[in-house]
């Protein structure tokens, strides 16, 4: 490993090292400053990525523009999640250095997954951040729901890890290599190899909540602390989408791969939208909506040869902004007990304008209504799908988007149009960090919706 390699790898080293340092610092002097320290580490990693962009190829890892983009994207999500958690955790009595340290570790794992050049490193990265989420989901030790969610996530997660590992093993048995570039070479696909690819896809489907591997999503999203859900539903989805993008060339020449993704996309869009219709808890509604949203990412992957890759990443970014803003608003508005029922949001648009506006903008974005980023994202996905000849899937996507409009509007209606019943308790005031944490994704949502050209050009460049 040369010095240049080390410099290129520095953002990941900062994140991983920062995680350890935060743990140590917490052991010496615990306190709220650890969140600030963690944010500083993430900001340093981001600054390094932007200021000293290096490209390096090492065994297992390659710091490419693709990887650097994802470090930037996921790091921004991490900063927002940390800002949210700082206020939320103080109100809820979640103390200790393990929260920010684990979050940094998750970011390092995501970075490694996005920079992977072989299946082993990909597996390590994916499982590193999933492992971090096992801790984060159940971090509220007294919460029954949190414990239940943690256990569910752990059981499902280990199963998917086993499936993923099995798939990798099968691929290795059949081809004798784990390097993604060699595996992407066109060759006659033998059954063992294809079985391996299918298992890998299934393992990743779990991370992306693709139907039928989605069943953990509503329970875990509801049970986990809201800032964790915000991070889990956005950054881990983004990193997993990157992983899919790295793995899919293996199945490039195989029609069956297309068919499997086609079915996944169809089932995910329809199932997520329909299930969200009947929810009364906002976290479950957003959870099912995130299932539906991942269906559109799958739709973009189906149309991969027609420019679906760019559409998928753009969609993931737009979804991340909206997800952070919506779960962030839930987190900022929750005090002692989670504000979970949609009815509890009546009139909040007036009592807490910033959080209400953030939630409303996020919901319009998720519904795909301009000028929010979600519209541009859907536009990108639908045009890729039509270019790829997936007309039927695009029509299904449009119809499930219409269903989506209905359930997203239910929340907006509660926020602004339903009268408050009885004497409602005053809405909690936002802390400064929460106000910033809500403003960043909200502004990003509007900006990407109005002027998406720079990001689209950047994506075109990194996907080469």
């Amino acid at each position, binding site marked *: 490993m040369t010095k240049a390699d080390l410099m290129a790898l520095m953002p990941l080293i900062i994140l991983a090292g920062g995680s350890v340092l935060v743990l140590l610092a917490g052991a010496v002097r615990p306190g709220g400053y650890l969140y600030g320290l963690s944010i500083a580490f993430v900001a340093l990693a981001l600054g390094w990525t932007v200021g000293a962009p290096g490209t390096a190829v090492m065994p297992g890892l390659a710091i490419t523009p693709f990887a650097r983009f994802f470090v930037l994207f996921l790091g921004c999500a991490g900063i927002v999640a940390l800002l949210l958690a700082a206020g939320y955790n103080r109100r809820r009595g979640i103390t200790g250095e393990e929260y920010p340290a684990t979050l940094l570790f998750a970011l390092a794992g995501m970075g490694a997954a996005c920079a992977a050049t072989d299946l082993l490193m990909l597996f390590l990265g994916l499982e590193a951040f999933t492992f971090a989420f096992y801790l984060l989901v159940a971090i509220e030790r007294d919460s029954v729901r949190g414990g239940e969610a943690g256990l569910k996530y752990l059981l499902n997660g280990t199963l998917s890890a086993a499936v993923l590992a099995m798939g990798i093993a099968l691929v290795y048995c059949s081809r004798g290599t784990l390097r993604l570039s060699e595996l992407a070479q066109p060759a006659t696909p033998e059954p063992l190899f294809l079985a391996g690819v299918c298992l890998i896809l299934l393992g990743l489907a779990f991370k992306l909540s693709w139907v039928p591997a989605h069943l953990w999503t509503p329970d875990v999203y509801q049970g986990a602390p809201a800032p964790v859900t915000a991070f889990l539903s956005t950054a881990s989805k983004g990193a997993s989408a990157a992983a899919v993008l790295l793995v899919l060339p293996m199945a490039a020449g195989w029609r069956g791969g297309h068919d499997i993704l086609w079915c996944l996309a169809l089932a995910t869009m329809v199932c997520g939208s329909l299930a969200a219709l009947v929810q009364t808890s906002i976290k479950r509604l957003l959870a099912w909506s995130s299932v539906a949203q991942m269906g559109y990412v799958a739709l973009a992957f189906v149309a991969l040869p027609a420019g679906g890759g760019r559409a998928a990443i753009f969609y993931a970014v737009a979804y991340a902004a909206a997800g952070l803003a919506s779960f962030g608003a839930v987190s900022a508005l929750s005090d002692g007990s989670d504000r979970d029922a949609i009815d509890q949001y009546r009139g909040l648009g*007036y009592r807490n304008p910033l959080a209400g506006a953030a939630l409303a903008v996020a919901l319009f974005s998720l519904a795909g209504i301009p000028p929010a980023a979600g519209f541009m994202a859907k536009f990108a996905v639908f045009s890729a799908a*039509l270019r790829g000849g997936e007309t039927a899937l695009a029509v299904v996507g449009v119809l499930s988007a219409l269903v989506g409009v209905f359930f997203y509007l239910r929340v907006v209606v509660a926020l602004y149009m339903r009268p408050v019943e009885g004497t409602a308790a005053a809405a909690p005031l936002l802390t400064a960090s929460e106000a910033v944490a809500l403003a960043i994704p909200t502004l990003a949502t509007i900006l990407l919706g109005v002027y998406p*050209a720079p990001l689209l*050009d950047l994506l*075109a460049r990194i996907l080469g």
Partner: protein
Amino acid sequence: MMADLHLLTILVFFPLAGCLLVLPAWRRPAAARPLVLGVMTGELVLALWLYASWQGLAALKPALPGYLLVEDAPWIPAFGIRYTLGLDGISLLMVMLTAFSFCVALVVSWRAVGEKVGLFLALLLAMETGIMGVFLALDLALFYLFWEVMLIPMFFLIGIWGHGRRIYSTVKFFLFTMFGSLLMLLAIIALHLLHARQSGVATFGLFDLIATPVPAATQLWLFAAFFLAFAIKFPLFPLHTWLPDAHTDAPTAGSVILAGLLLKTGSYGLLRFGYPLFPQAAHTLTPLFYALAIAGIVYASLVAFAQDDMKRLIAYSSIGHMGYVAIGIAAWQPVALSGSIIQMANHGVTTGALFAMVGMLDERAHTREIKAFGGLWGKVPLWSFFFLLFSMASVGLPGLNNFVGEFLVLAGTFTKSPVAAGLAFIGIVLTLIYMVRLVQEVVFQVERTPLPLADLDRREMCLLAVLALVVVWMGVHPAPLLDLIHGPVQLLVGGAP
């Protein structure tokens, strides 16, 4: 020189910029209202100034034939989307109508809206931007963007300040329109891809796409998607069911804008985009279009006759009037099309005025039941006079504005399809019946319930006087407006079989 001023961009975004002005006065309605009225009047003045100088602009020969002003800049190169705005005679008429209707909507809700005034004004301004954009966009993606953007403020307007089952109505309104629009979005993208495949150029520009030869079968599908979106907005029978609910439950300002402008975006879209892009498919579907329009006229008139709520009655009359616009477009013939376009403006003014007047009555009596009134001529003579005037305009009395539009539509359609014209004529008689009944029950009967009603105050007087002036002027001397749209109409019709 004129193009360098970015007048169209100003026209579109000036109201939105006006929102910033409202922010400091957010909690002080008394200061915010005049400010916003100033912004809207400024917009109206700009529109009228453009109208005053349109012949000069036309002589300058801008980039596109028939257009007075064009602006064009790249916006999202990755998708081939450009920021293209264009103003021709038809757009100019619609722009004037928009600027005017928003002033009306603001003045009419001067006192009626007392809660959350800052938000109300900001939403009005945002909606004005959206609607201006719809009438000026010449890039299909940009058009679609504005088309959706204008829905959001209306959604809030009905949902927050509405009456009765406002939430049901506003969600229904939003879902109906979204259903049509989303399929249109797919059609827009499909057309774009078709063009890209043929010519290798990725563009959403209207005039590039018009030049794309589209196979007949594909054309039918794509046109069907466009047609559905526009027909829902129009609204054509049987897709109209959102309209009575939305109108009835909307605040008066919302009704004025819904009737005056949002319905027009449907007809405007059809004649600007639907017909020129898919001429053969449009030709194939013309009988269906006629049938739906005439069924709508007859059905809406019959239903209007049975209404007890004045606002609902006028809402149904809207469907009937838009039926004439539809017939004129279906005929796709210069005289009928001119009639349709004039009728769009006429209907916006008259129906807007009627909704405003019912709103005024509702503010005083807190009911809109026809049965509750009677004998108003003796009690509120000024109100009754204006109501009679606008009702007669709505019926199509010669000398008032609607007569011009309906006459041109029927005269033009007669040359193409005498049957359709004949059937549509029956509709005029039906309109006469239910409007005369309304006027007779409300204005002339004996007083049914003793309601303490005050006559119009000065603000309402001014507003109605201006509206009445417009109604009479457009009825007596429509020639300047017909001149304005003559060129663009010829260009449109020349481009289709």
